[in-house]
């Protein structure tokens, strides 16, 4: 059986298994099965020919008379995204071990179902299939956030759902339009890419796609669902959202928007870059004023992905390569940061940075882990944030010096608010909340070691990944 199909089937069947079997061992089963999927991805990684091009293609007729097929394949971009998904899912599951969720089998079943849909999004080579996976990824996270979330979960998750659904439907209209314009009436990626249309039509399609992706990423001013949802969802859900799901939007920009409407990108790409950079500055400034750590990281996340989006839309080689690398990095760092918050919150029942303090005095090991992840997030050289951010800023510099200057502000602002947070939470004197900060458990140590190892791996030897990314970059440049 082709390996891509197995990659999709394992999480699907595991989730169905978990839904069916009510077991206390649900989390162990989920961890085991998702690790299998990660190992499968490593096999894929070694079999993949680094020269580029779409490999492991699988093409079945789904609805023949409508030109819809179940068509999947892997190129450098898909490979990186699948790797990120299958790597982070077991990490996220492992990180949730210290929390007890009611109905764990449903919880982990939903996470695995989401993994399946996300992999599907990244490997789909058929517009219809892409859309189905895209929407499918939304259902599990809706239930995760609404069933295990915080106080206002019902209102917030519904807002999140309707917001993103509306964007997706716009994309559906664009896809149907392209389908009707394609000579063979087919949804296949190559057919959609080959559609010729008027420049005005390309403009409309550009905006329909862009709004759909911008809501998911999220790009200012379509980000308003994000801080609430991140804050209110259970930590594992937040990790799935920020670590993997918002990469769907960035991935969509590369895979679907740029190659299909290159003229639209030439005409309107600049607005996308400007919006992204405005978002970077806006959310950095708001992050400065946050006292809730989870909310703070939510805004940091908007700033980081804004910069990635700017890099991708700058249409410069370095910007795109750096953007793809940064998508991996951001996934790992976001999961790491949310995990740190989770550890603190579980021990102190508090995540207000003004009320915490002095944790480093009590638990220096945890302080080191937090510091490493934090440095990765603010892009210190030798950590994973650096190569990606450097490449993105190089790309932006070639695009426009001012854009680069404003985008670069994020490094300064980011360093400021992250270090300030660290200072307030970890340094200083201990207080009643933090003086009994318990030592890290084995599971927590393992998770943090894995995350920190990745921070250094990408930081010190980014070529490990850039070798896969560089050959595909040229196809995501519109001119």
């Amino acid at each position: 059986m082709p390996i891509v199909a197995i990659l999709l089937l394992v999480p699907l069947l595991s989730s169905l298994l978990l839904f069916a079997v009510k077991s206390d061992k649900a989390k162990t089963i989920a961890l085991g099965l998702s690790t299998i999927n990660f190992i499968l991805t490593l096999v894929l990684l070694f079999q993949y020919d680094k020269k580029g091009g779409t490999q492991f293609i699988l093409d079945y007729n789904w609805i023949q008379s409508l030109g819809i097929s179940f068509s999947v394949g892997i190129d450098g971009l898909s490979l990186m995204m699948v790797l990120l998904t299958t790597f982070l899912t077991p990490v996220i599951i492992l990180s949730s071990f210290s929390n007890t969720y009611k109905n764990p089998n449903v919880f982990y079943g939903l996470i695995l179902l989401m993994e399946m849909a996300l992999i599907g999004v990244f490997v789909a080579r058929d517009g219809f299939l892409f859309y189905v996976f895209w929407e499918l990824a939304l259902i599990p996270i809706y239930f995760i956030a609404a069933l295990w979330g915080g106080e206002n979960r019902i209102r917030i998750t519904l807002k999140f759902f309707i917001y993103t659904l509306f964007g997706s439907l716009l994309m559906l209209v664009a896809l149907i339009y392209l389908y009707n314009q394609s000579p063979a009436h087919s949804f296949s990626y190559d057919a959609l890419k080959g559609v010729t249309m008027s420049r005005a039509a390309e403009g409309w399609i550009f905006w329909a796609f862009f709004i759909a992706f911008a809501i998911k990423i999220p790009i200012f001013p379509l980000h308003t669902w994000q801080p609430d949802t991140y804050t209110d969802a259970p930590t594992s859900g937040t990790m799935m959202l920020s670590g993997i799901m918002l990469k769907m939007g960035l991935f969509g920009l590369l895979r679907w928007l740029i190659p299909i409407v290159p003229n639209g990108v030439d005409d309107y790409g600049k607005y996308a870059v400007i919006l992204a950079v405005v978002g970077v500055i806006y959310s950095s400034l708001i992050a400065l004023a946050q006292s809730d750590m989870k909310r703070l990281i939510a805004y940091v996340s908007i700033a980081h992905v804004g910069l990635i989006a700017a890099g991708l839309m700058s249409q410069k080689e370095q910007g795109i390569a750096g953007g793809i690398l940064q998508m991996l990095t951001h996934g790992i760092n976001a999961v790491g940061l949310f995990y740190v918050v989770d550890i603190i919150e579980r021990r102190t029942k508090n995540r207000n940075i003004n009320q915490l303090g002095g944790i480093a005095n009590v638990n220096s090991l945890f302080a080191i882990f937090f510091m490493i992840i934090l440095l990765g997030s603010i892009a210190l050289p030798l950590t994973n944030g650096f190569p990606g951010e450097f490449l993105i800023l190089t790309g932006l510099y070639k695009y426009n010096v001012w854009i680069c200057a404003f985008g670069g502000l994020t490094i300064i602002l980011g360093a400021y608010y992250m270090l300030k947070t660290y200072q307030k939470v970890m340094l200083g004197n201990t207080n009643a909340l933090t003086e009994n900060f318990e030592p890290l458990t084995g599971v927590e140590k393992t998770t943090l070691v894995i995350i920190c190892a990745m921070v250094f791996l990408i930081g010190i030897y980014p070529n490990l990944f850039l070798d896969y990314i560089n050959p595909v970059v040229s196809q995501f440049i519109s001119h």
Partner: protein
Amino acid sequence: MNSIIILSALGLATMFAGIYANKKILLPMVLLGLLAVIVVNTIDWDTNKHYYNDMLSFDNYSIVFTNLILVVTFLIFLLSGNYFKDHREHLEDNYAIILFTVVGAVLMVSFSNLVMLFIGIETLSISLYILAGSKKNSLASNEASLKYFLMGSFATGFLLFGIVLLYGACGTFNLSGITSYVVTNNAGLPAIFYVGILLIMIGLAFKVSIVPFHFWTADVYDGSPTIITAFMATVVKIAGFAAFFRLFFTCFVSVSDHFIPVLSILAVCTMFLGNITAVYQKNFKRMLAYSSIAHAGYMLLAVIAMKNQSFMAILLYTAAYSFATITAFTVLIMMKSANGNDAIENFNGLSKKSPFVAFAITLSMLSLAGIPITAGFFAKYYIFSTVISEGHTWLVVIAILNSAIGVFYYFRIIIAVYFKQGEANFISPDFAYKAVLIITAIATLLLGILPGLVIDRM
């Protein structure tokens, strides 16, 4: 044709069997009869027969629509065994009248003469007036019946007047006759011809509750016995839209520029009014009534496209809508018999009481909201695709806006079922209810994941 004869005979037999035989055999008899009709109907596949000087013609679409109507009726009858348990005295009447309604519906999907269309609509409507009032001691049921009858006969008047005007212009009731008249006189069609189209449009729009001819819907749906509401909301929609499109596509394609703008405005109003009003409903039954109006708006989009694919679009959409709606009404019946009302709060905490029923109603709501991988999504996609290919992209943009509004109230049920605390009281489903829920859930998923099973065969 054989299906109409057997159905009528089955209806008569049911009426007399109620007098002479044990009432317990009624239901099995009807169910077996319906299965037989499905088989007989399917045998005519690809034969394309015409009957009675071309009064009726059974092409493949008539057969598929007839089968859909029969399957839906079968499910309704499965539910009825339990529903009519407490008032058995008029059981045979109810059953027989439901069967006569189906005869009317089958006529509506297979007419090729305006007289047959009229007879079909009247058979369907008059039976429904009676069924709406079949809960004799309930004030609401009587009100529903009277309201439906008054408004319905008014609409029938419009329809008949329209048919007469068309006859005046064309000199024939026959669809192919009208078509050739339109084609040959395309340059100078008389005014009465256009007025005729408009009046027929009004008559049909009333039957499928298109705004502004929808005012009866909420009250009639609310007042009628729930099982009859389920029947009305599904079978009438299927037959109504099949008839609507059959008539307009066969005869009036070449003059479509004259009525497409009107239909477009009606569709936009229907979608907005149905969806927005549904958001404010606290009563599940009324919410479903407005949701049925909203869905009529989406289906009207398929009519507006005026393409061959519109048949398939209407078929898929009515099928997806019917299966989801039947699930919703099944759960509603279970809720109502335990709580005595249709409030949405009754659903609070249902997932803890019965994960199976919770899953079924969730799937049905997802399908109505049009979320992949349910039938509702694919049907909606198909309609959108058909409409966009005819260049009415702006209509689809309005439709997706409405889909987003739709999520708001359909998810209210899912939220109540899974996320709200409460003591969901409901009678636990017996075998028939379970069977209906399972069949509709499987159909919803199957049409959503493998729609090729239907599409690639037509």
